[in-house]
């Protein structure tokens, strides 16, 4: 990449749209939403700009490194900018630990250690930071990982939203385990580990301008124990994904596109708690696009599905696991849902942030 094009920032030729009517010369909130815009930012700006230094563009939760001596490591990072910092069921600290533990576990790895990077806003109350840090320690202990290294920076008041946390994690992948999106095969079974939409709705319920009453709490949880139990039943799990931003819909779309397979499911088989349904109802949201922080999607060959499902249901995090659909060779790259009435509709990624609507 020439210096000039790096300075320009955007590889205009990378854009897939032949007539960009609104080419974005600024970052917008949607770029962080986990939907199509985020994906494009990664593909057309970051990976394009990193050039030869960037590895393949497969969008997986974590990167797998083969050390060549029989050891494979999974490495992942994530940054947490959630507002509000505290929400029903947790806070940004727990999210930061569980989120990266889960990213590492989605490669089938046993997470070992996490780093923690803090960007603190000048003026943040010490006891707020203390509560967050205490939660992080507790979450790490529950997940069986160590917080081993970190960094702290402070930015001027008005520039930080309280606190931003980055965590990076490393884990070891057991032998015989090969989990990545392109392993999905027609005939495979799609399993969700439990009910969807809890985290996103819990956070929205305390968002300014929306506040609504609910008993719902975020489902933030470390899933490495669940993954270990599943791999104990069979090492032949093909795909694991935790549907965070963008929800179950976005995750299924990413898998379908990466693997070049079709995914089919029955809307009625997706477990959605009544309260999530009710909140989505009056806000005009689609539960499929609401974030989760303690769930995973698993794609497994049909011959091991029963065993894996049984192993999941024997754990706390996976007690409500259920089959929701299958992988097909029709409509490759597309996710198709059968509606309650029996019609089919294509499920797309949300474009950016999920916003309440009146229409």
């Amino acid at each position, binding site marked *: 990449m020439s210096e000039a094009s790096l300075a320009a920032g955007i590889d205009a030729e990378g854009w897939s749209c032949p007539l960009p009517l609104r080419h974005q010369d600024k970052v917008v909130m949607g770029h962080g939403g986990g939907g199509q815009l985020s994906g494009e930012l990664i593909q057309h700006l970051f990976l394009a700009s990193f050039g030869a230094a960037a590895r393949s563009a497969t969008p997986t939760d974590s990167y797998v490194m083969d050390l060549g001596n029989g050891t494979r490591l999974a490495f992942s990072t994530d940054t947490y900018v959630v507002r509000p910092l505290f929400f029903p069921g947790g806070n940004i600290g727990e999210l930061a630990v569980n989120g990266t533990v889960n990213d590492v576990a989605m490669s089938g790895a046993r997470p070992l250690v996490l780093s923690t990077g803090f960007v603190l806003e000048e003026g943040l109350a010490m006891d707020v930071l203390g509560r967050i840090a205490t939660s992080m320690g507790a979450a790490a202990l529950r997940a069986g990982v160590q917080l081993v290294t970190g960094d702290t920076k402070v930015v001027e008041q008005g520039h930080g939203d309280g606190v931003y946390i980055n965590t990076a994690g490393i884990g070891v992948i057991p032998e015989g385990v090969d989990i990545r999106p392109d392993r999905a095969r027609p005939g495979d079974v799609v399993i969700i580990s439990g009910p969807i939409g809890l985290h996103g709705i819990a956070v929205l*319920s305390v968002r300014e301008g929306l*506040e*609504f*009453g*609910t*008993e*719902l709490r975020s489902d933030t949880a470390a899933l490495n124990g669940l993954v270990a139990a599943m791999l104990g039943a069979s090492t032949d799990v093909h795909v694991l994904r935790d549907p965070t931003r963008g929800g179950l819909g976005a995750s299924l779309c990413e898998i379908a596109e990466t693997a070049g397979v079709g995914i089919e499911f029955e809307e009625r088989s997706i477990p959605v708690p*009544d*309260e999530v*349904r*009710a*909140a989505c*109802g*009056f806000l*005009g949201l689609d539960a499929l696009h609401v974030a989760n922080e303690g769930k995973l999607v698993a794609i497994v060959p049909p011959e091991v599905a029963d065993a894996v499902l049984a192993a999941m249901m024997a754990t706390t995090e996976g007690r409500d696991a259920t089959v929701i659909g299958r992988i097909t060779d029709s409509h490759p790259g597309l996710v198709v849902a059968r509606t309650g009435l029996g019609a089919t509709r294509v499920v797309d990624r949300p474009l950016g942030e999920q916003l309440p*609507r*009146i*229409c």
Partner: protein
Amino acid sequence: MCLGVPGKVLEIRADRGTRMATVDFGGVTKSVCLAYVPEVEVGDYTIVHAGFAITKLDEKSALETLRMFAEIGLLDELSADPAASETTR
């Protein structure tokens, strides 16, 4: 333009002279303005749009409508023959 959802009124209060209610949408509650539905009382169902109750939901009418659908369903079952049930898809 019309995302209006039915909910049940749990409690009513005055807020700066305006009649407000806590409405239950099936486990999730929201504060709703009742200024346009003076006849609505606690226990009633109402349709809510953009934070406002726009009508009392006529429960009797709702049940009648459902009964009518059920009758259509029966009618349909009675008149259906195997060929007819393969409707246009």
